[in-house]
């Protein structure tokens, strides 16, 4: 099978469109549809057309080489760009793969056998019409595939999984007297909590909070310490079992050279609820 002039032209055009689409501010889905063939089929198809301009390759082999060579060319292009010290970003990728496709198409067109070597137009044989039914079946099949894909991506009901809550206490990297205390609910329903903060054995924060599923509260505290080794402990209780520690975190003050004074938090400096 000889690659037709039309096939080569369409490949070059698609390569160009793909390169442009990669750089255009399009929705990612549309970009994917336009661009993915560049790395999965177009560059390989163009290269195959350039390497095998005559009838020496059948359609199956041509499609096989289009797919595998496209991936191979992408890998080798990536290695080459990396070796040349060029960052593997959208612009270099688009220029390289589109450029390769266009060059290969130009070579393929140049190497194409003269028109008189092409076979005469295929005569349609009687009784071999495709009909509408196969196209409809194909469309149905594609529709069912999309439905399957959407179906498996539907998240499950929260009652299926065991919920949980995260509690954390993280010192600021630059100022250990500033603490970030966070609670995030992954419970199935709105949960009432009691949160306590104990600094050097003294309860300095004791507050109630209710979090909806997926809600998070992050509070920044300024805690002045009196000595090295002072411990800060945060505990979380649920209203369902107020006597049982539900979550617990703790940290030890690493240095003595932080703010002295009463070991009580100055209150929330900043509270974020998301």
């Amino acid at each position, binding site marked *: 099978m000889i690659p037709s002039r039309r096939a080569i032209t369409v490949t070059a055009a698609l390569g160009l469109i793909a390169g442009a689409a990669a750089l255009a501010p399009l929705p990612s889905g549309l970009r994917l549809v336009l661009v993915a063939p560049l790395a999965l089929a177009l560059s390989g198809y163009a290269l195959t057309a350039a390497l095998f301009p005559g009838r020496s390759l059948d359609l199956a082999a041509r499609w096989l080489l289009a797919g595998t060579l496209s991936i191979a060319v992408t890998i080798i292009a990536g290695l080459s760009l990396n070796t040349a010290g060029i960052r593997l970003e959208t612009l270099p990728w688009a220029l390289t793969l589109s450029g390769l496709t266009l060059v290969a198409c130009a070579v393929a067109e140049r190497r194409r056998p003269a028109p008189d070597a092409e076979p005469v137009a295929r005569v349609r044989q009687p009784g071999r019409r495709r009909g509408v039914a196969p196209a409809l*079946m194909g469309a149905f099949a594609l529709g069912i595939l999309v439905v399957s894909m959407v179906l498996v991506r539907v998240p499950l009901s929260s009652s299926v999984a065991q919920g949980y809550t995260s509690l*954390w206490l993280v010192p600021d990297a630059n100022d250990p007297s500033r603490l970030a205390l966070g609670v995030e609910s992954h419970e199935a329903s709105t949960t009432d909590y009691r949160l306590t903060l104990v600094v050097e054995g003294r309860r300095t924060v004791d507050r109630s909070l209710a979090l*909806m599923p997926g809600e998070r509260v992050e509070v920044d505290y300024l805690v002045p310490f009196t000595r090295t080794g002072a411990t800060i402990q945060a505990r979380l209780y649920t209203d369902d079992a107020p006597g049982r520690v539900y979550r*617990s975190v703790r940290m030890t003050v690493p240095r003595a050279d932080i703010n002295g004074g009463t070991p009580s938090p100055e209150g929330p400096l900043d509270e974020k609820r998301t």
Partner: protein
Amino acid sequence: MTAAVGVGRLLKRTAIALVALQAMVVAAKMVAPGRSEPVGVSPGAGTRAPAGEGAASTSVAPHRSPYELAPDELAPRTGPPRAGGDGWRWTAALGLVGSVGLLVVAISYQLSRSGRGWAEALFWAGLLIVLVPFATRLASRTPSRGERIALLALLAAYMYLVKVLHDPFGFMFSDELIHQRNAEEILRSGSLFGENSLLPVTAVYPGLETAAAAIASLAGVSVFTAGLLVVGSARVAIAVALFLVFERIGGSARLGAVASLVYLVSPNLLFFSYQFSYESLALPLGAAVVFAAIARADARGRHERLAWTVVAVLLIGAIVATHHLTSYSVAVVMLALLVTSLLAGRRGSGFGALGLVAALASGLWAVLVAPETLTYLGDIFSRTSQSVVDTASGSSASRALFRSPSGESAPAWEPIVAIVATALTTLASALALPRAWRWRHRHPLIPLLALAALGYPAFLLLRFASSAWETGNRASAFLFIGVAWMVALAGPHVLLPLRSRLLGRAILPALCAVVLVGGVLSSWSPSVRLSQPFRVSLGGTTTEPEGAVAARWTRDQLGPGNRIAAPAAEARLLLAEGRQTALTGSSNGNINVLLSFPPFGPAEEEVIDANDLDFVLVDRRTIAFDNIAGYFFGIVGSRSAQARPTFAPEVVRKFDVPRTDRLYDSGDVTIYDLRRISR
């Protein structure tokens, strides 16, 4: 704007089915009316074959194929051969049936995630709805060559979609998360050869990740979406590549299609070979190299030979940068082809030159770019051989088959089906041996395929050795190519004695069904065979299991690049989602001991110090040490959730010592700061 985003999302979802669509496009081209082409030969070289076999059977190989037996030697046949237009209808109809099968599989996955009954039965039903009609049609004599290729491409895409539907939210198989990290690192840094703390060798074979990163960067999609497309394309390609190879050496499109079909149902292929993992891409490229090498040997004229050489060298280059073992295998196969060619009295095939190119390129890569490869593979081989010796001598207990790492046992019928499947393929290979022997000089690849088939059962035995089973598992992806060929070659032996037309038609689809089901049963425990709950709805938002949330918490609150010890599953999540330097297992300074045994003492401090650990993630569930099943929610009220074992409290709380800080607590998962110990 919202509408544009909505359309974009819909397009993105549709694009996940792009692989199937691509296969459909190939299908449409292949089954176009009146298309009957010679296989890679020059114009006029081929003569038209009967429509039932396609032209290839007469144009390429002058010898008689077992699949070219006279009609009455196989099954009774009535009426004239079907025309090409029928092929288009058949392909569309089977495509529709296959998509219904996939819908049934999707329903089974959704039921499985919610812990409802019938999920497993529906899964098997869906799989068989996909497979059996395709197998029946492919085994029959009527389809044209183009239709056979189209059906194989579609079937390969559908089988791949079974895996895609299994984990629709992200990569979940253990190797996938490791490669996901590499690809995301390429996107972030803009350069190759980053670091990977869990499997360092993967970072120096970045072929798969480069291709995925290219698509992700160009299209602005996630590595997950890009990776699915790359692997999907590769898996469709291997079906076509094997068909073309088998067809050439067997001289029959039907033989080629049957052999390729058998490969598509090979044990472990369904999930393992469809992973976002370097071997999943390298093996299809390897099959394309073998096709290119064979076509090159048959090429007429210098230009054509040169073109095939360029193709083979480009593909070898990509393989060398993608997967160590596949690149070595390509070199070995090429050199073995040279030997068998010489034994058959053929010269000038060019296999030797390609073998040398592959050997030289992979050797140079291993020395200059990936020096850790030899240590990595050496460790695996020494561990495998030691394990085999220990198991054979009885000094270590043999591995319990049909039991998951978390101790879950399979129902009694499963081992029976799996053993029957193995016995059938072994028997079929044995039946084909006399024919393979008679054909040994017909094509230099035939003796190699027979050898691979003979080696396959031996590698299956490795599954009994505790540290060797994974080697046997990985080898099966290569060796089963030989088994597929031998099973197809055995076809006439099995079919000839059958007088019943129905039996004659049913036997191959039945065999494929048993091999597929047996392969899935023997490779995947019930807990992971079907999809598990990963994302659940919480009012207007969604959530994921503790491990995934904790991994992202480390990235957001502690910053990336910390050295964190964790159980196997969570280490992978920390690597991929948390962008941390995760450490796990026994090869990383005995992290498993650190996490599994109380109390905290000098030995622990030594491990922390030796690994320069910043943090440790403790999970009280033992399933977190299972890198296949350890990522998911336990389903409320289910037996499996209630039976999930946990560590003793003294293990879970061993890091509650004065020199640690307990920074994060989500119930099962706790994260401790160890920096006051390690510094």
